[in-house]
């Protein structure tokens, strides 16, 4: 009897993952066509182009060797980060609640960290032809500083900036993740959901609204969307850590963006609205609606702001950190 239940729960978890993945592939297209293109007053591409058609097309291209000192590690990194995001989504399903520590905030924070650290490694291992490897006569008679200087590629700037994003930029999201923990007095997702089913959704309390704003800013930083996309600023480092990915590996990168968008919005629904990720109940529609609203807000923020440099980045992060701390303090006191 227990075997059949375990079998049914495994199948349930896998089907939930597949359906969430498919919904996630539509989100970049919706952001590009229905939000950004409408604001810029033009017709955009079709809805499936950035999220579904582009990865499929990339998988049919020729597999060249990337220009990197450690190609094996470089090619494995996007798969590792995709699996990390997929595991977060797996641990959010109700079938995983019996596995105690895996369905808690600790596991989610740890896996997000894996996803962020991969940018640092990608940036330092990518040596693209668009910066230093171009055969241009730089070291010639009359040039400045011809000896005794370290010449680095554009992607090295990206990896230094990713370190700064990890150090400062992850504060908002992690602080917002701890506000429900403080209210429900437990680290496990099942307890947080039970608390909200008894006392009403956390979004409608004071600390909930503050934490929701901080969660939104933190998720834009984790997604590397404009205005926080200094890692992949097109006017500067062209594409940053992703420069040398070809064929199948590039399609993994495109797919993981949509998946990350859906995962963050699912996390928001579970932690602040208290609805479990159950495919068979009508509450699943709330997940889809929250994902669409999330995409709408990210698209609007993307279309109306330039890229933030240090001068604008630090004040925003400090302000949202203070808001997060305030929300935690209110949660402890009430």
């Amino acid at each position: 009897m227990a075997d059949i239940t375990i079998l049914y729960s495994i199948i349930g978890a896998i089907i939930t993952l597949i359906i969430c993945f498919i919904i996630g592939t539509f989100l970049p297209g919706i952001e590009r066509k229905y939000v950004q293109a409408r604001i810029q007053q033009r017709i955009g591409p079709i809805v499936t182009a950035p999220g579904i058609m582009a990865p499929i097309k990339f998988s049919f291209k020729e597999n060249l060797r990337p220009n990197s000192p450690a190609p094996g590690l470089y090619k494995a990194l996007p798969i590792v980060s995709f699996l990390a995001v997929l595991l977060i989504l797996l641990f959010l399903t109700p079938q995983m609640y019996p596995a105690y520590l895996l369905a808690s905030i600790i596991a989610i924070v740890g896996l997000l960290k894996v996803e962020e650290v991969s940018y640092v490694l990608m940036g330092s291992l990518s040596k693209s032809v668009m910066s230093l490897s171009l055969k241009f006569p730089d070291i010639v008679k009359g040039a400045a500083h011809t000896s005794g200087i370290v010449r680095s590629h554009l992607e090295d700037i990206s990896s230094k900036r990713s370190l700064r994003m990890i150090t400062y930029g992850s504060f908002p999201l992690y602080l917002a993740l701890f506000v429900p923990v403080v209210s429900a007095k437990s680290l496990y997702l099942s307890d947080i959901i039970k608390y909200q089913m008894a006392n009403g959704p956390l979004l409608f309390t004071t600390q909930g609204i503050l934490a929701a704003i901080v969660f939104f800013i933190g998720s834009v930083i984790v997604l590397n969307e404009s205005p926080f996309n200094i890692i992949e600023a097109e006017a500067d480092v062209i594409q940053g850590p992703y420069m040398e990915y070809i064929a199948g590996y590039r399609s993994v990168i495109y797919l993981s963006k949509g998946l990350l968008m859906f995962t963050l919005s699912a996390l928001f629904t579970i932690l602040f609205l208290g609805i479990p990720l159950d495919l068979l109940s009508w509450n699943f529609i709330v997940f889809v609606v929250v994902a669409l609203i999330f995409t709408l807000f990210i698209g609007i923020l993307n279309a109306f702001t330039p890229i933030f440099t240090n001068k604008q980045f630090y004040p925003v992060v400090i302000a949202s950190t203070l808001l997060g701390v305030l929300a935690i303090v209110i949660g402890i006191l009430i």
Partner: protein
Amino acid sequence: MIEEKIPKSQGELIETEISMGTVHPAALEPYRVRFFVQDEIIQEAEITIGVNHRGVERIMEGLPVEKANALTEKICGICSNCHTWNSVMVAEKGLNIDVPERANYIRVIMGELERLHSHLLYLAHGNEVLGHETFAMRIFYIRETVMELLNMIGGNRVQYGVSVIGGVRPRCQLDDMRVQRLNEGMDKLEKDLTKFTDRFTSDPIVNSRIEGIGILPPKQAKKLGVTGPSLRACGFDYDLRTEMKEYDDFDFNVAVLDGCDVKSNLLLRVLECFESIKIIRQAVRNLPSGPITNRNWEMYDCKAIKHYIEVPRGILYDSYAIEDGRIRSSIIRTPSMTNIGAMQYAAIGNQITDGQLCIVQCDPCFTCTDRTFEIIEL
């Protein structure tokens, strides 16, 4: 503001070098720039031109004068009309040819339309380097009005070929329908540009991105020979159009700001756009009647003739000698030559993200400038 920006000398230790290549999204034309960086602050910058060198002055040696005037148009795609205008005026000055009044007014209208299109392109490109795609698309949309007017008068959106020796081409005659279209175009452009400027200057995030970036101290700007709007953004009131006799009949103000940074450069060019609209309206209202081409002139030999005009980027200098109906020893010196050199100093002290913005702020036109020989020894 500091007095003078000095780069670090050869012997001192600099942490790392970042090079941005010939093909780069922030660069509209091919050039190579090396930033010498310490702690993400630029200590020195080195810009290499000569990538675009096609040998135009060498080709022009021995060409008939009319053919050479047609070749000067293809030197640059953005500032094409001003090269032709200057080159034609060199021949008219040397051969003492009178230009009819109506032709002069049409040349001024084309010159100001070109200034409009060039400044709008600069604004759109600057916004794209900032990362703001929405504003860039909005400006490209506003710019379409100007491109259609240029297409109507000249016959092509880029490289219109309006000036010939003795006047303008017969195709560029302004009749009633074209005059009406010009007036409508100017009204629409003024309305759109005002709305956009209000939106742009009241945006706090964009303002914090462009204030205080890429400062070039005024004393150093004068020493390095910067001309044009970049000099007027440093507080100096110098515009060659107030001394040109072609602009004697027109009444306009010279815009001057004194911030010396990216924001002053952007705002100054917007103010100049409004002045250009004013000049075009005056020209269309007071258009004199008469012929537009003067074909009664004869060719004889002249020694080297020089001429200067004010183009959207500064002061352009052209000189050649005429021998037996052909050109000898032509020299063209564009304003971007000194402006680009000055930007190597303006980039010092900023972050790498703002590095390309500091170079783009002087509106460089590398294709105009690449006319020097460079001998390389590896």
